[in-house]
């Protein structure tokens, strides 16, 4: 009889314990438990600290005004306004803009890599993409600031040189490697027997891809998109340097915007420690945290829910 052992990931089940542990074995187990709990605590601290920092803001400012206000002007000496909408819209514009560019191109690229590229080219291309996924965001930001914005000025003649489009394009370039890595994995894990079955029925390669491979890999592809989108929402340096940092409520891609991440990064340079503005920034951080957490959760759920085991 073949055993399916579940040494790992075996939650609901207890393993019989050895009561004759030597002191050394016991000490090691305790040390490992402590280390694990410290990481739980450290990670839990992220959320706790955000809550603690944000609560004073919700006590002093108008919560409805915070979520519906259309003006973000926290530095005003007498009448600071903390409307998160301009920042929220800024974030959405930049990340949806980036997704609109990155999804088709990234998908095309992953299909090419998984289905069309020769094994030799793939064995170079795939690690290269993974290495590129590690380029620090400040470098993309720098490129957007110095080079890309110039090109956009020539083509579109925008109102301001640093604008939402600039940020969106740069973010798209950043998102693509993440997307390609995950999506290609998903397509690669579709067993070739499925492809062969379809091809043997006289389908063309494109028809096989369209009707067999893509549906089978769909959950992985969706997860790739969602993950990359989450990264775009949370990205700070690129948008900080590329979008011009003007917190105005606009839907024009050729104007400057400010995202939630950028507002936190920039405003903390001049904020008084413990002031209302300080706590409001924590509240913005909390909103950001909730959004990205939800996005990641969604990606995870999609993978779990629709995962096909081959």
């Amino acid at each position, binding site marked *: *009889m*073949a055993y399916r052992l*579940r040494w790992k990931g075996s939650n609901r*089940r*207890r*393993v*019989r314990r050895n009561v*004759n542990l030597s002191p050394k074995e016991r000490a090691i187990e305790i040390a490992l438990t402590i280390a694990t709990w410290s990481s739980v605590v450290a990670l839990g601290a992220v959320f706790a600290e955000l809550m603690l920092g944000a609560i004073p803001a919700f006590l002093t400012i108008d919560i409805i005004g915070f979520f519906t206000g259309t003006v973000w002007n926290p530095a005003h000496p007498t009448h600071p306004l903390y409307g998160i909408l301009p920042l929220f819209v800024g974030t959405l514009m930049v990340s949806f803009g980036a997704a609109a560019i990155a999804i088709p191109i990234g998908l095309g690229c992953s299909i090419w890599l998984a289905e069309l590229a020769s094994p030799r080219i793939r064995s170079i291309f795939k690690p290269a993409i993974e290495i590129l996924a590690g380029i620090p965001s400040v470098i993309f930001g720098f490129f957007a600031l110095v080079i890309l914005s110039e090109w956009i000025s020539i083509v579109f003649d925008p109102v301001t040189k640093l604008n939402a489009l600039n940020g969106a394009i740069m973010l798209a370039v950043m998102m693509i490697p993440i997307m390609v890595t995950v999506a290609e994995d998903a397509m690669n894990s579709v067993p070739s027997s499925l492809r062969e079955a379809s091809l043997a029925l006289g389908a063309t390669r494109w028809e096989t891809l369209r009707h067999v491979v893509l549906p089978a890999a769909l959950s992985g592809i969706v997860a790739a998109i969602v993950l990359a989108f989450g990264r775009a929402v949370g990205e700070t340096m690129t948008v900080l340097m590329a979008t011009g940092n003007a917190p105005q409520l606009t839907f024009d891609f050729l104007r400057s915007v400010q995202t939630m991440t950028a507002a936190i990064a920039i405003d903390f340079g001049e904020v008084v420690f413990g002031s209302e503005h300080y706590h409001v920034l924590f509240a913005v951080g909390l909103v950001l945290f909730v959004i990205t957490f939800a996005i990641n959760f969604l990606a995870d759920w999609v993978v779990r829910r629709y995962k096909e085991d081959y």
Partner: protein
Amino acid sequence: MTTTIHTEDLNVYFERNHALIDVTMDIQNNQVTAVIGPSGCGKSTFIRCINRMNDLIPGCVVKGKVLVDGEDVNDDKVDVVDVRRRIGMVFQKPNPFPKSIYENVAYAPRLHGVTEVVDGKVRRRKHTKKELDEIVERSLRRAALWEEVKDRLDKSGMSLSGGQQQRLCIARTLSIDPEIILFDEPCSALDPIATSKIEDLLVDLKKDYTVIIVTHSMQQAARISDRTAFFYLGKMIEMGDTKQIFERPQMELTEQYITGRMG
């Protein structure tokens, strides 16, 4: 013949699944005992109770007694590490460590050291290089592998063929001189030639060890074992001398199985 292993009302549960039901049986010293039965009948589960390997499976509960030389190894107070040192196991798929052939065999002796009595005191010390070399050679010879690998002891154990890997695993088990050796379908991943080598080896081993083998091959059980136990759906249906089991089975289920009308 003396009884080495005696199980009494042995029951195993995997969560809600009752995998082994009231197994009471005796296994004799210096014999090859074969455990046969269709897939999922609990035969592997049974031998894994003897060296407590079922402990590793989350949610597995083993109830009842497994007396080895009169000591209940299923007792919570027993040191499983010690049990497994005394009762060796060879697995279905050859699983040498990805280390050299020498290191594969020397690993367990190194782990346990030498226990000796000096001036009336029990002392543990490390093996000398010479002692280790001897153990490695002796174990490999005993597993009928020495001649094939003596010139390349430093090569990886993974570089051997499947049958050689399995004999290396046997040598590895022999290195600490267990009393009992459990074989969990040791030939199921091997070709016929490698299988017959292992079978010869098993018969030879019973001179010094008590051998228990789980097998899905009735021919194999008939060829090498002295006694055979037939398991079906978690119960031990019948046990007796191999010849008797195959020629004059007492139970109808056994007869159906060995005549191929069920399986």
